[in-house]
Structure formats: structure tokens, C-alpha cells
């Protein structure tokens, strides 16, 4: 499937004080998709975003936004993109409407265009009632909505969101997700950073997993999960000395892909659980190997993350025992 490319990133690198924040990054963002940069704090995703919105110059490589270079044609890039920074980037003394009025002038909208678009946007993000109250009276969710209205004001072709739901309650998060999906419906390409796995999984069409300034995996969340190879059955075995015996027996059963020994039992990758599970239990019975616990799940994005980075997104230290 060949699709129009909105953003082309090629061998991008950024070094701060001899630390490589971003290291040889290459990827494409297709027009009309929601593209997520997923990674823990300090992985380099915000740096990448800042280069794409022209606020940082790359040390090496290049980024092209709708065919325009992020450094040489920065001013033209800025005219075609919208940016939603993290929640705090709000002037507490200005009202919601005044934020939009200010940005309308910065995007050089005519007074007629501004007075037409601002009420539309306030309506879109459901802030009409609070439009004339200073932003310091807004809740976190309301500030976020105002942010999104600000990002949409220039009628951008591409919208960049930096951690759009960081620190929001569940309901506000779901609202923001709806808004982001609505943008895709309107044909806007969305690029966002996140360190929430469920957000990347449910909202993004494609994600790039970034860790240590490098891309570890790239693709649709489902592709990435399937790529791990099969569903996972984890067994906790009561008698640890039986584990090797069971592993040997399970290996030759039908619909089994791979078997790995864990400290408490076995991790078994299976192709079809309905065939594999009875066979596994059967084998355990035959060997009179008592099972303490059986866990079965489809691969989750956490598994993808761990498989590609060697650690969980919440961990700060790599796991010692991981391959």
C-alpha cells in the first residue's frame, strides 16, 4: 500500500552537550494518520517533536514536513502546522477567547476570519461557556481543550501533540482521544508523543517505539503485537524440578511455537489457544506436574515494548535477566 507521505525523517540526530538525545532516526508519517512516538521519559521523543515543529535544529540528518525542510523553510513549515504543547503552556491571566485572539494575530488571520473561526473552535472543544473566564479558573481537562483549540486555530495540515493526556483524569482522557480521532476524520495528520501504552495502542494508527534516542520498533500496534509471535500461556509450576520435564513434553505438542523456562515455570507461545491449551494441560496431568497458576493472554503493547527495549516502560533500569 503506497500512501502520501506527510513527514519524512531521515537519519535525524540531535546532540546536547555531547549527549546524543536523538540518534540516527528515520521514519515516515503518512498523510491522514495518527502517528505516535512512544517511549519513556528522556527517550528522545520530545526532542524529535521539537525538531519537527522547527524549534530545534538537528545536529545531523533532516526532517521534511510536507516537502519543506524543517530548518531552511522553517517559516513555511510553521504556517502549515499546529502545535499543542504540554498542559502548562497557558497564560493564566488571559481568557480562553483571548488565547485564540492572540494566536489569530500571530498566524496573521484577518479580523473577519478570526471572528468566524474562534467561536467555531470554542464550540468544537465545548468551551463556549467558559470562554471569557481567565484560564487560571480552568480545570486540567479544560486547559487541554483550550490547548487543542489553539493548535487547530491555524487550520493546520499537521497537528503535533506533546503528551496530550498527561496527568488527566480518565474521562478527560477519553474526551481528548475523541477530539484527536475527530481531527483524523477531518483529514488532519496527527503526530503525538506519549508514554502511555494504552493511548498508543488505542489511539494511534502507527507507532514508533523510541528508547535511548533510537527507534526500536515501528508499525501498527497490532502488527507489532502479532510480530511477537503468537499468544502467550504462562504456567506457574508447583514443583520446580518438574519444569524441565514438562518443557520437553510441551515442545512437541501441536500449535506450539516456542517454550521458554522462567524462574517459576514456563512461558509458551502458542498459535491457537483452543488446540494448545488442552494439550498442555494434558501433558501436565500425564507428568503429574501440578500447576499453581495458568495465565493466558494475547500479546499486549507492554510485551512489544519489553521485547524491543528489554525493559518495561515504567522501569528506569533495564532488566538484568532479559535477553
Amino acid at each position, binding site marked *: 500500500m503506497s500512501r502520501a507521505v506527510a513527514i519524512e525523517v531521515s537519519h535525524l540526530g540531535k546532540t546536547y552537550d555531547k549527549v546524543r538525545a536523538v540518534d540516527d532516526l528515520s521514519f515516515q508519517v503518512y498523510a491522514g494518520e495518527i502517528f505516535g512516538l512512544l517511549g519513556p521519559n528522556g527517550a528522545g521523543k520530545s526532542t524529535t517533536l521539537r525538531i519537527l515543529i522547527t524549534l530545534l535544529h538537528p545536529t545531523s540528518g533532516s526532517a521534511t514536513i510536507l516537502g519543506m525542510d524543517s530548518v531552511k523553510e522553517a517559516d513555511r513549515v510553521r504556517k502549515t502546522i499546529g502545535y499543542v504543547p504540554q498542559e502548562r*503552556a497557558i497564560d493564566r*491571566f488571559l481568557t480562553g477567547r483571548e488565547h485564540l485572539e492572540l494566536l489569530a494575530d500571530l498566524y496573521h488571520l484577518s479580523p473577519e476570519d478570526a471572528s468566524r473561526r474562534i467561536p467555531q473552535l470554542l464550540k468544537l472543544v465545548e468551551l463556549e461557556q467558559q470562554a471569557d473566564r481567565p484560564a487560571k479558573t480552568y480545570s486540567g481537562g479544560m486547559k487541554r481543550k483550550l490547548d487543542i483549540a489553539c493548535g487547530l486555530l491555524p487550520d493546520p495540515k499537521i497537528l503535533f501533540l506533546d503528551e496530550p493526556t498527561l496527568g488527566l483524569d480518565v474521562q478527560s482522557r477519553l474526551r481528548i482521544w475523541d477530539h484527536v480521532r475527530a481531527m483524523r476524520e477531518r483529514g488532519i495528520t496527527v503526530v503525538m508523543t506519549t508514554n502511555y501504552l494504552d493511548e498508543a495502542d488505542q489511539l494511534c494508527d502507527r507507532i514508533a517505539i523510541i528508547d535511548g534516542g533510537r527507534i526500536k520498533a515501528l508499525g501498527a500496534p497490532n502488527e507489532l503485537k502479532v510480530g511477537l509471535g503468537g499468544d502467550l500461556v504462562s504456567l506457574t509450576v508447583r514443583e520446580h524440578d518438574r519444569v524441565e520435564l514438562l518443557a520437553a513434553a510441551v515442545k512437541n505438542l501441536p500449535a506450539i511455537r516456542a517454550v521458554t523456562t522462567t524462574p517459576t515455570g514456563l512461558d509458551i507461545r502458542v498459535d491457537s489457544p483452543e488446540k494448545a491449551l488442552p494439550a498442555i494441560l494434558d501433558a501436565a496431568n500425564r507428568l503429574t506436574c501440578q500447576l499453581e497458576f495458568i495465565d493466558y493472554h494475547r500479546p499486549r503493547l507492554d510485551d512489544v515494548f519489553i521485547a524491543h527495549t528489554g525493559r518495561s516502560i515504567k522501569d528506569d533500569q533495564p532488566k538484568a535477566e532479559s535477553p
Partner: protein
Amino acid sequence: MKEYWQEIRALTMRWVRRLSREKFSMLFTLVQPMLFWLIFFGNLFQRAADMQVTQASSYISFLTAGVIVMTVLNNGLAGGVDLLFDKENGFLERLMSTPIHRTSVILSRFIFVMTITSLQVLVILGVAWLFGVQPVTGLLGVATILFIGMMFGVGLTAISMAMAFSVKSHGDFFSVLGFLSLPMIFLSSALVPLAAMPGWMGFLAQFNPMTWAIDAVRPLILHGWAEALPHVVMVIGVMVLFDALCLYGGARAFRRAIG
């Protein structure tokens, strides 16, 4: 050009709006220098100050020039504070992601600080007038005073903005600010003429651009054009140099932070 003006006007209006929302802050900003220094300090030292030394009919009339330049100093040095907060909470980034000319934000800040400072200088002259101090050089003299104040203010605001763009935290910013402000005032001719200072203080005060500004503003208020003119010419020369240095440093800090 039309777009540039649209940006600058909108950004300047933002500063005005912010100030008008902070009513108490506005009141104290406007009232503090004249209340503390001119009214209290001026009257407090009325009898303690020797007229032979100050060469003025009253201490308040001597002090007026100093209070005016002090106000320029304080406003200028604090001129970058709002940009510092904008930088820290990410608002600056939001502004910079829009297709504005890179200098608009800075220029709007200069316009705003200069306007507020000029208004304050006029208020100070008004309060001094209530205490019987009338600038002998008339309206043209007042205009000259405003001009000198703005020239000094531009350089100071540039220093402040350069600091705002360079410091790691706002704690650093306010420490430096507090460290600069009072010595600048004491090591100048604001409160006492240079001739009456201990030698070493007088020596240091000569290198303080504030002294030059005060020495030009004071004769404009007290003595008349004949005495003031050479000082005015001198201070304009000094300020051109001072502003050039500060703007150069400011531009470098800005480019490093935003570039």
C-alpha cells in the same frame, strides 16, 4: 510589514492585559518607587541632607532625578521576568511555533516596558511637583528626561531578557537581580552627589551608567539647559555604547535559546 505589526501589537496587548488583570501588582508597580523613595526618603532626609552638598533647594528636588532613574533601572532589570515565566511554562515555545518574526516577542516586551516606565516617570514628576519641584527646562526638558530614561531602559531590559534566556532556574534570575539592583543605586549619584561620597565609592560610581543618566536628568530639573546640555550630549553617547553592548549580548543569548 503589515504582518509584523499585527504580531507586535497582539503581543504587546497581551502584556497590557496581564498587567491590568493583576490590579494589586499594577498599583504597587506604579506607586512603590515614589512612595518609598521620593516621599519617605526625600522627606526623611530633608534636614539631614546638607544643601551645600546637594546644591538643591530641597532634598526632594535633588532626589527626584535619582528616583526617576532608579525606576528605569528597576523596570528594566525586571523587564525579562515575564519572558522567563513564558520560557519555563512553555508558552514561549507555543509562540515560537507560530510563523511570527523571531524578534516580535522581544520587541513587544521593549515597547511595553518603555511605555510603562515612561508613564511612571511622568507620575513621579507629578508627585514631585506636589512637593514643589518643577523641572526648570519645561516640557521639552520632560521629553528629554523620558528620552534618556528610554535609552537607559533599552539596555537594561536587554540585559534582563538575556538573563531570562540564559538562566537555568528562576531562582538564579532573582538572586542576580537582587544582587545587582541595590549596589547599582548606592554606587551612583542617585542619593548623594559623587563629590560627597567616600573616595572609593565615588570612583566606582563614575563607571556606573546610572550616574551618567542621573547627572543629565538632575540639571534638567534643577538648573536649566545651559548646565544640562553638555551632560545630555554625554549621556546620549554613553547610552548608545551601553545599549549596543547590551543588545549584542541579548541577541546572542536569544539566538542560543531559540535559534
